[in-house]
């Protein structure tokens, strides 16, 4: 179980800016959480703070009751935290299969690299020997990035906008893959996403805005709330809460 207690993150510059403000969250085993909310609300910063890329200015992060706030990225990875980048880095001279083998190297279970690629909608034969460099498209990189996290035996897996740049067919495959992990393993899955279809996978949805958690509840309650949200961006008066066929009036 992962807990964030009064976690704040401040970026210091000409003007100090608080990205995360006094965040209190609890993530339980075998549950899927979707973190959503407007751009710049602190979602990716939250993910990076969990992985140890950012060190909180104050507050504590606990994994299974142990304080990991002072631990670096490597230590947290070895304790079972994983993170799939929103914009994954590329590596010249490293092949897809080599990167996936590196990812699986600390996993006590035998991992089939080809199955991993299949799970993210890529044909193993076409990709195993390709370099993880600019020859791969954004969508391909994104899927390989997700596969590196799936390769690991994790307590907490954080995926930052996993659906970005992924085509419709692969999206379906990906959704199934998240469901499979959910049913087979005890991993806590945290998905940062704006996609309704990703939200449908969630046990709980967390809404972040302005660096704070503005809502956290079971999926259906939050989804219903989003559908009835008064802050609709429609320029005209809008008939709200009637699903996808809502019509603008006036």
């Amino acid at each position: 179980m992962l807990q964030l207690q009064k976690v704040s993150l401040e970026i210091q510059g000409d003007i100090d800016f608080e990205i995360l403000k006094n965040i209190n969250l609890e993530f339980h085993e075998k549950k899927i959480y979707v973190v959503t909310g407007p751009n710049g609300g602190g979602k990716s910063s939250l993910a990076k703070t969990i992985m140890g890329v950012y060190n909180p200015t104050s507050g504590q992060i606990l994994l299974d009751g142990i304080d990991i706030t002072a631990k670096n990225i490597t230590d947290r990875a070895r304790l079972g935290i994983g993170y799939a980048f929103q914009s994954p880095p590329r590596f010249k001279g490293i092949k897809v299969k080599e990167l996936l083998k590196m990812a699986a190297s600390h996993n006590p279970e035998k991992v089939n690299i080809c199955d991993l690629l299949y799970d993210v909608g890529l044909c193993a034969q076409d990709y195993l020997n390709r370099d993880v460099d600019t020859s791969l498209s954004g969508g391909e990189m994104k899927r390989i990035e997700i596969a590196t996290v799936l390769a690991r035996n994790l307590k907490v897996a954080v995926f930052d906008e996993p659906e970005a740049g992924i085509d419709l067919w692969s999206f379906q495959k990906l959704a199934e893959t998240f469901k499979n992990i959910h049913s087979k393993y005890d991993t806590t899955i945290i998905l940062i996403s704006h996609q309704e279809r990703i939200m449908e996978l969630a046990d709980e949805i967390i809404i972040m805005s302005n660096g704070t958690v503005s809502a956290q509840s079971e999926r259906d309650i939050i989804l219903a709330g989003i559908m009835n949200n008064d802050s609709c961006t429609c320029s005209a008066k809008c008939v709200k809460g009637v699903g996808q066929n809502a019509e603008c009036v006036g």
Partner: protein
Amino acid sequence: MLNALDKLMLEKVADLHEIPQGAFNIRKNGAGVQRNTTANIDIVTKEDKSGIDVIIKPYTKGESVHIPVIVTEENINDVVYNTFEVGEYSDVLIVAGCGIHNSGHHKSQHDGIHTFFVRKGAKLKYVEKHYGQGDGNGERVLNPKTIIEVEEGAVVELELIQIKGIDQTKRDTEIRLMDNAKLVVTERLLTYQDQEAESNITVELSGVDSSAQIISRSVAQDDSKQTFYFDLIGRNKGRGHIQCDAIIMHNAQVLSTPRISAHHSEAQLVHEAAIGRIESEQLIKLMSLGFSEQEAEDTILNGFLK
């Protein structure tokens, strides 16, 4: 005749664990020590100067020639002129590494001047690896010069690798491509401490529809210095692409000077060059897979120089 140190050097520069199969010529401390020829590949000592002629008969397929040079003493200044005649429609591998073990305080130097004639329709893969070791403060210096004439329809693949232990190197490579000839050059270079390396590659696209691709990757660490000059000249309809990437670390310096010049309206020449440090995102990615920072850095550099 070859001791354990010699064998280690051979392994480093030519991936040889045993005496090689096929044609070979092993040169140690300025003199030939062992040679083998085959029915298709002859090796003859030059009479007018130090060096050998390697003559590969036309249509020789799937054979290799190893010509490693090892220097295990200090105060050696070895200059050698080797000429390679790669016969028409042959398909061969030539491995020419140089390993220096200098435990002394005086300089050891080997300058290999290699001239290749790759005849019509032939395929040549040429690998040159440089390696140095030794505890002494005697400098290990290698100054290779490679000249390659690639005739009509011939294909040349060049691998130039210097990963460890050479204090000073100045590498000159000049290649001329005739009609439909194809060239791929892969250069890998690592320098550290106060090593200095200079690599000059000139490629002339002389024939119609010739093509050249030069991929250079280097890592400069500590106080080392690297200088690159790439010169791609399009004299006819053809395509040429230079891609050079350097990772710079610590107090190192990298100077890269590209030049592309076209003398024909259908010459297409491209140059891409980048110098930069290891991206922090790359380190973070590998650390998030459980690698330490040092392991992540080593993995990135090993991949880059592969």
